[in-house]
């Protein structure tokens, strides 16, 4: 206290210096703010490193065996990995290593990279090269656009994209990758007619060898001549496909056989694992600008938007770039909502201050602390690496922040001049309120501790908010003891016990009521108890929502089909859906991405499509809400585009779900093993078992969609008899669709591969594919191999080093703990095949952990509050009396939620925490004075007098805290859904806790503390300055 007292005195003594330093700090804060990053929401992605491999043409089992397993094995011993999971799909492998929260992202990447470099040696060249996914997060997809052309082929468009568009965007600071769905990597397609090969008795190997020789470059080193030298090289690089078609494959006495006689040569595109479509008009390239983890979304998007016109000017005129998703829209709208709420809240606070204090200067002085404390919060956020977003900035209540300041300014305004200088009076008055202000703000800080202790997703969402509030509170507190007394000594003139018209009017009602209630303490106590019990009982009627769904302003429709769908059919069907969605008046544009991007950051199969819907501004809508719009779309799609399964989500929400890939049900049994059929069968048995347990709902057995396949099993005996080698057969099979790369030709600084494929008709049975024999003549593939039609899994998921399937169930009408206990014993009783094991997961883990944390942290904090109150008052009874404000405040919050039909969510719980802080603070403000006065009289006298004296500060702090939240409570803009429950709880809670503080508390004090009454002769003189409010 002495330290603070000294600080106050010094601040007033050097007031100009303090004001100058405050200004300087503000300027510094403004600069720090400019270094701050802004985004719409906090990043809830865990620290993970993805290892991606694209192996177009390989089936899921081959991908798992050739790529996923070596990568997984290499990561086995990496320190800090908490989860290692993978998914193998046709053509794509994705291994995700999740590290402990708090691990440095770059260190994690470094560790993974070292191991993956080792794994590369085990992976065949034809199975692709594993690469680390770009260091981005769930918020990374900041700008998405389509690249289309009316005249270009997909491979020509891709060439433009890769040469002229992507590199320009990748060079923008903060952009880590520009990833694309669709288009096709340009290549020279040599499509050999297998019947022409037979006719000319030429094998594929012979063609491949001729091509390799025909397109080559050889360096001969330097040729020295006298004092100089010249490098020598030989090259053959046909200029056109026609020139390549003229190369001689074989020449003998019968003449020459040219490549063109064996098939066709032309430019084409490589196999794709993804497709892009837009506006129902067919294929385009769907491109996505990905943000570097930690970079500023807003500035990056701005630069991307500025760069696009320059790019457009430099590419062919019939190539058009059309944005489909722009994070600026969301960030801008969210920040606008937040700014509006904050600005309106600040203005309302100033207005309330004017109304209750009746002094413009005092109001403005308090108001000036708002931006200064926010600058302090910005500096803190920037220093800790948090971004400015809806959660970190959207829940700041200026009323709450400046409560301490209000008490200081109010006391200075109301101080009586006692003959000392104005400066000394200011110092003494401020020093006198130091203790209650410190305790009050200390309690506010204390109540935010459980928020800081949150972990998991809710921690990532709400911790930044708590950090913001704490930094702002600490800044405001510091300013209240430095800047405020310094400025007040210059600006404020004390007005003594001057009350504004509003306060006088309210007191005219309040004083008689409060005095009257003193006569009926038991009735008041009973009524208060009944009120609290009844309203708290209403909690049971509230719905529960973990975190409110954040409105992003755009929609995503995810579709899932049968995995056997062909790329052409997929494109055709998606275009159909796009046309349907595009016909809604609320929709501005529709574009889709099917399958995986070139760098498979999102490993989807061709059967899966994300349809991104860019919505028009809300005021142009016919639908009442996003939910109504989604329902209308779903209904229309079910009728006009039946077949796929539709899921409506939002861009960021979808990405978070993909990256976190958690089990969404209450309970999940993960079954691990090696034989997928065995796992699926066991999954079915477990699901049946769970279904019989009381309370089980939505039990889902594991399914793995099958993908038709053709298995060619080579018969080595038959090969030997035909004098063939297996390599030739493998080469031939590879050429059926994927192709065999036999070199590349050079086009300026780029190279384009030459790929041999067999020109096979759709109808050709693979078993009848002719093979040229080395000694002449031919056989069919079916003569040297068995061709079997099979079904392979469309996706193989692995975790913990083995294949994994999951059984999920929700629990209704029963507590989760007992359900899990029963389920465990029942499942353990089911016999498991050797080599399989299970692990339990699901939301119940999160909920149990959250419940455990809450069970520890909330009572701890409540206990700490009581301890602080005890320390403030030196006795337990006043501490517990003030503590009554907590349930009283909670009752109002619950009623407000019920009245507005809002569910109980983490957002509302954070609101309760803030509310408890304000409620307890008001109790301190009132009871600190009551205790002082009690020393000079009876408990009832003290209660009545203190209530009368503290009416204005209590009402002021409660009103400004409540009114500060009003804009958030009624906001409807983007992001308002997160602020709404929080603000509603605080406003509702203050509506009940303030009357309790002002009416019930004095009544109860007069009744319960009568035994502490002292006689007049024992009474010491009143230590406080007469007329001082606090």
């Amino acid at each position, binding site marked *: 206290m002495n330290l603070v007292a000294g600080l106050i005195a010094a601040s007033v003594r050097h007031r100009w210096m303090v004001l100058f330093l405050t200004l300087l700090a503000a300027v510094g804060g403004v600069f720090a703010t400019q270094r701050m990053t802004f985004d719409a929401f906090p990043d809830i992605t865990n620290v993970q490193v993805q290892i991606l491999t694209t192996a177009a043409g390989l089936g899921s089992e081959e991908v798992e065996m050739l790529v996923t397993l070596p990568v997984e094995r290499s990561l086995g011993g990496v320190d800090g990995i908490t989860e290692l999971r993978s998914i193998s799909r046709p053509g794509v492998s994705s291994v995700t290593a999740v590290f402990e929260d708090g691990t440095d992202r770059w260190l994690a990447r470094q560790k993974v990279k070292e191991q993956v470099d080792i794994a590369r040696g085990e992976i065949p060249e034809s199975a692709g090269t594993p690469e680390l996914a770009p260091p981005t997060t769930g918020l990374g997809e900041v700008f998405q656009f389509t690249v289309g052309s009316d005249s270009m082929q997909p491979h020509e468009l891709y060439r433009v994209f890769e040469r002229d568009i992507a590199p320009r965007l990748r060079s923008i600071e903060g952009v880590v990758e520009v990833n694309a769905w669709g288009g096709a990597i340009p290549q020279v397609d040599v499509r050999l007619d297998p019947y022409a090969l*037979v006719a000319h008795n030429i094998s594929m190997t012979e063609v491949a060898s001729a091509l390799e020789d025909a397109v080559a470059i050889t360096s001969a080193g330097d040729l020295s001549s006298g004092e100089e030298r010249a490098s020598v090289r030989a090259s053959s690089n046909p200029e056109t496909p026609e020139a390549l078609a003229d190369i001689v494959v074989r020449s003998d006495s019968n003449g020459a056989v040219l490549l063109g006689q064996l098939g066709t040569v032309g430019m084409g595109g490589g196999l794709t694992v993804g497709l892009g479509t837009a506006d129902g008009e067919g294929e385009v390239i769907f491109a996505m600008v990905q943000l570097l983890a930690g970079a500023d979304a807003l500035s990056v998007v701005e630069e991307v938007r500025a760069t696009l016109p320059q790019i457009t000017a430099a590419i062919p005129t019939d190539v058009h770039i059309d944005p489909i998703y722009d994070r600026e829209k969301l960030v801008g709208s969210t920040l606008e909502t937040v700014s509006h709420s904050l600005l309106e809240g600040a203005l309302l606070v100033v207005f309330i201050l004017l109304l209750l204090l009746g002094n413009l200067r005092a109001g403005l002085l308090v108001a000036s602390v708002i931006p200064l404390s926010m600058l302090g919060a910005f500096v803190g956020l920037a220093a800790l690496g948090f971004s400015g977003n809806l959660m970190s900035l959207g829940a700041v209540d200026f009323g709450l922040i400046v409560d301490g300041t209000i008490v200081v300014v109010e006391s200075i305004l109301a101080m009586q001049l006692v003959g000392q200088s104005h400066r000394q009076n200011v110092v003494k008055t401020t020093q006198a309120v130091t203790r209650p202000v410190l305790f009050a703000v200390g309690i506010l800080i204390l109540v935010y501790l459980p928020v800081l202790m949150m972990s998991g997703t809710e921690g990532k969402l709400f911790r930044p908010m708590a950090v913001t509030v704490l930094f702002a509170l600490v800044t405001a507190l510091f300013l209240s003891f430095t800047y405020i007394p310094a400025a007040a000594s210059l600006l404020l003139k004390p007005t003594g016990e001057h009350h504004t018209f509003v306060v006088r009017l309210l007191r005219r009602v309040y004083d008689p009521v409060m005095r009257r209630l003193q006569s009926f303490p038991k009735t008041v106590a009973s009524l208060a108890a009944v009120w609290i019990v009844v309203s708290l009982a209403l909690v049971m009627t509230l719905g529960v929502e973990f975190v409110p769904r954040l409105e992003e302003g755009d929609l995503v429709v995810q579709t899932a089909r*049968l995995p056997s769908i062909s790329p052409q059919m997929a494109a055709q069907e998606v275009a159909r859906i796009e046309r349907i969605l595009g016909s809604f008046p609320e929709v501005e544009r529709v574009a889709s991405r099917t399958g995986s991007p070139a760098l498979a950051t999102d490993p989807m199969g061709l059967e899966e499509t994300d349809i991104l819907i860019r919505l028009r501004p809300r005021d142009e809508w016919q639908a009442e809400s996003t939910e109504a719009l989604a329902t209308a779309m779903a209904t229309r799609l079910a009728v006009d585009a039946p077949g796929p399964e539709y899921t409506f989500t939002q861009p960021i929400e979808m990405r978070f779900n993909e990256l976190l890939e958690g089990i969404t049900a209450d309970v999940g049994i993960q079954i691990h093993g090696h034989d997928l059929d065995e796992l699926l069968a066991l999954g079915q048995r477990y699901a049946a078992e769970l279904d019989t347990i009381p309370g089980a709902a939505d039990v889902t057995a594991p399914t793995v969609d099958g993908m038709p396949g053709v298995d060619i099993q080579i018969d080595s005996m038959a090969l030997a*008899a035909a004098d063939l080698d297996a390599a030739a057969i493998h080469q031939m099979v590879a050429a059926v669709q994927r192709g065999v790369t036999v070199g590349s030709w050079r086009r300026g600084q780029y190279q384009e591969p030459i790929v041999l494929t067999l020109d096979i008709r759709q109808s050709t049975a693979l078993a009848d594919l002719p093979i040229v024999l080395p000694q002449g003549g031919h056989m069919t593939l079916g003569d040297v191999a068995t061709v079997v039609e099979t079904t392979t899994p469309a996706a193989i998921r692995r975790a913990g080093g083995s294949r994994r399937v999951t059984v999920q169930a929700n629990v209704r009408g029963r507590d989760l703990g007992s359900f899990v206990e029963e389920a465990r014993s029942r499942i353990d009783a089911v016999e498991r095949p050797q080599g399989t094991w299970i692990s339990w997961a699901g939301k119940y883990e999160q909920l149990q952990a959250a419940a455990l944390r809450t069970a520890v942290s909330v009572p701890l904090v409540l206990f700490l509050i009581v301890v602080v109150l005890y320390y403030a008052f030196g006795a337990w009874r006043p501490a517990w009396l003030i503590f009554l404000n907590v349930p009283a405040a909670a009752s109002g919050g619950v009623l407000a939620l019920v009245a507005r039909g809002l569910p109980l969510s983490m957002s509302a719980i954070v609101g309760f925490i803030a509310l408890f802080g304000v409620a307890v603070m008001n109790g301190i403000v009132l009871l600190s004075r009551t205790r002082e006065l009690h020393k000079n009289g009876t408990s009832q006298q003290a209660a009545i007098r203190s209530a009368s004296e503290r009416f204005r500060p209590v009402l002021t702090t409660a009103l400004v805290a409540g009114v500060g939240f009003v804009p958030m409570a009624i906001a409807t803009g983007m992001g308002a859904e997160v602020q709404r429950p929080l603000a509603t709880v605080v406003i509702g809670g203050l509506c009940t806790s303030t009357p309790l503080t002002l009416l019930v508390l004095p009544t109860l004090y007069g009744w319960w503390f009568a035994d502490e009454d002292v006689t007049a002769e024992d009474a010491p003189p009143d230590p406080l300055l007469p007329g001082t409010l606090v």
Partner: protein
Amino acid sequence: MILWLFLVACGHPEAPEAPKPSYAERTEWSAVQSPTTVPIVTLPAEAVPAPSSEVQLAPPAAGRILRWHVSPGDTITVDTPLADLASPQLTALRARVSTLSGRAQQARTQRDLMQASAASGVVSRMDLQAAQATLRETESELAGTRSELAAYGGQSGAGLTWTSAYDGIVGEIHCPVGPVQDGVSCLTVQRDRQVLLEVRVPARHLAALEGPLRADFTSLDGSHSPFVEVSRAPAIDRHTRSLLVQFRTQDDVMPGAAGRAVLSAPRAQDLFLIPRSALTRSDGVPSVFVGSADAPESRAVQVLGGDDASALVRGVEATDQVATRGVFLLKSLMAQEAQ
């Protein structure tokens, strides 16, 4: 409260029933086909000349081929110039004709003198007869040599134009420009344009290819010709595990033409042709949707062959309609129903 009572009394208004999706517009159906012959398999094929119709031509004389006037595939008639030859044999013949002409002239003069003398009785009748015999021998030898020379064609000097003695199509030319031996076959002429199509049929297909087969041949240049089976080899080739089957056509097909042939056989009663677009796979086995858009039914089939457009299947009925468009949609809906 009043409002609540009102709502309770009235009940909730019936929600309008969502229209049911219609699949009729998104599917197409066609009847299964039951032709007399059905395509079974597509295999490499080569047109070869029929053995009896082929004539091997050797140059009329040993020497040197200077230039070919024809190339494989050219149609030729009798006396069509085939090639220019330079031949030492021809030079020798010409010299002999010249010698024999001189000797014949000399013998004729001698005979005339002796004939005049014989009238005056100076020369005996026997001497005259001897002179006449000499003349006849010489003239006969000259005529033979001239005839031999005439066989090379109308040529002059040391060169020779080799002309065809047959009508037909030039097949293979075996002798490049350059020296050539006497009696070596240098040119194949397909006299009556008859070719055979040879197809090596893998043994595993033979069971399905009973009865007289037809072959629809598509050459590498894209021309199509129908063939009918004329013979099968007596045994399977052990090395290639295939049986050589030969077909004949009435069309004008170039010997040596290669390409692919779709082999068709008489249809068994339980086999039918369906469009390839009707085929899908359910539960890992080939299947089709039969019935109608309102009541589609998935039916497993066995695929036994087909061509580019059609598949030969067992498992459908002659009266069935199969879905040929919207098959994936029907399959998706069925999968959703199963879930």
